[in-house]
């Protein structure tokens, strides 16, 4: 699959509904216009149409899922702005700029393996849904780590059915396997014919990229995060260092957020 060329625009949509899915974590749901399309790995900048008293800028949210005619964005309260967003009620007019960024490339592969840390789970339900539809024979696996059981997003039956394997990890052992996803994958790092995807905190991704590199995998697709003011290539804030400069940096909004692991100076 080649990335789509969905038209980027500014949408003003009422927040359709919200739903808590873990401690501090919820879905924001919208009803997009029928012709609006987006791909897994892409993101939208979300802000309220009425200026917020707390958060001046919009915030990047990867498209979490597309189902039942709705767009879902996974929100976790991690700071003042996201905590404030979590208090918004249905009907609040929101501004959605997007879809933005380079999506995951959905190459044919017998196994698609996703490693998620915390809110890094966000892009993978939608990715799995698309892969399931496009490559029904492929195995789709999710390795998902959280700090503790309270933070863990419990998958619904429909979400669970998108994956052949779901393995869960917690730092404190309160749910699933104790320890990190990176340690938990053990010898599976060495398996060939696997399409790797990652999203999560920088230390986890750095460790995962190093493991993959030990096995000569440099084309794993990781969705990265950095502070952004605009999301569409103008503010130049969201830079990550390139492994092979020049240029020294890449912009995550237009040359990401999905980046192959071998291209980043971790």
């Amino acid at each position: 699959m080649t990335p789509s060329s969905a038209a980027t625009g500014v949408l003003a949509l009422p927040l359709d509904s919200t739903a808590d899915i873990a401690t501090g974590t919820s879905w924001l749901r919208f009803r997009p216009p029928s012709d609006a399309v987006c791909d897994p790995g892409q993101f939208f900048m979300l802000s309220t149409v009425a200026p917020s008293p707390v958060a001046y800028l919009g915030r990047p949210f990867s498209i979490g899922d597309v189902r039942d005619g709705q767009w879902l964005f996974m929100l976790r309260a991690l700071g003042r702005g996201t905590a404030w967003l979590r208090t918004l009620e249905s009907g609040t007019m929101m501004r959605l700029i997007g879809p933005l960024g380079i999506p995951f490339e959905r190459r044919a592969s017998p196994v698609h393996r996703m490693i998620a840390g915390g809110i890094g789970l966000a892009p993978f339900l939608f990715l799995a849904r698309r892969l399931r539809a496009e490559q029904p024979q492929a195995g789709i696996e999710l390795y998902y780590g959280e700090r503790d059981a309270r933070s863990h997003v419990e998958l619904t039956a429909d979400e669970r059915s998108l994956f052949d394997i779901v393995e869960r990890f917690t730092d404190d052992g309160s749910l699933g396997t104790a320890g990190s996803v990176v340690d938990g994958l053990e010898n599976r790092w060495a398996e060939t014919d696997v399409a790797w995807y990652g999203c999560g905190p920088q230390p986890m991704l750095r460790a995962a990229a190093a493991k993959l590199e030990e096995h000569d995998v440099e084309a794993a697709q990781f969705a990265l995060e950095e502070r952004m003011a605009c999301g569409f290539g103008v503010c130049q804030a969201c830079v990550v260092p390139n492994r092979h400069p020049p240029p020294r940096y890449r912009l995550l909004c237009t040359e990401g957020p999905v980046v192959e692991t071998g291209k980043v100076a971790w």
Partner: protein
Amino acid sequence: MNERLVATCGRITFQNPVLAASGTFGYGSEFERFFPLASLGGFATKTLFVEPRDGNPPPRVAETSAGMINSIGLANVGWEAFVAEKVPDLKAIIGAARMLVNIAGNAPDEYRAIAARVEADRERVGCAGIEVNVSCPNVKEGGTNIGCDLHQFQAAIRGVREETSLPVFVKLSPNVADVVPFAACAIDEGADGVSLINTVYGMQIDIEKRRPVLGTGSGGLSGPAILPIGVYWTHKVRAAFPDLPILGIGGIATWRDALQYLLAGAHAIQVGTAAFVNPLACVEIIAGLERYCSQRDTTIAELSGAAHRGGRLAEAAVWTG
């Protein structure tokens, strides 16, 4: 074109008084997916140096409750790449909008060098004028801000003026005790006008990590937080130099904000940070000013500086637009 909206700034006439500000509009074509560039009065390019610059290490932005602090470090593609790679796209879409090429250097003599390049390529680029970003550390003098040191400021402007006959607007820094002497110096050195204000020094500390958020420690504050500062200096400078063309900038997010600057003395305005949050801010401001002028039967030219002329004492009804 709506004649009421025409904004004359010295030798440059804009079809309306709304410009997109330097550093928040890329090289001009990035917003085309949101609205036609040709609908703007004009825009100022991202600051261009002779040589390309990578910019500062991240994090480069910190959000505040009413704006943001940036430390992008004037990342830019350099003059040659701008002319070769950006200008062709730009020329296809610019229409009646006017381009200001925003320039800077690492020392006063580098301002002369970039101005010479602009002058040499002026036909090919098709710019209406130059905006000089003086808020740049002088790498040869311990990093003092050129825009905050009258001596270096004068040298930079003089260099630019001697190299080009294009209209020159100098973008003034608010990080000085008094902006007026800098405006005076710009006039003495032959500048056509001034843009004010640039960002205000700012810092944010991460209370968990116990260190500054930005990779470079501090940066420039922009957004609604600085609106009153910009309006103040616009009013001051217009009072001191009633005939000086002024491009008002700093915290403008709505047509009401824009109108404050015009009334304070600006001849046209620039929209910056607001376009990050709402890419349609510029066109919404144009629409708002258009409605205001039409319903109040006035013009941008008439509104400019009106706050210096006693204002209007009685309004039959408050118009809410």
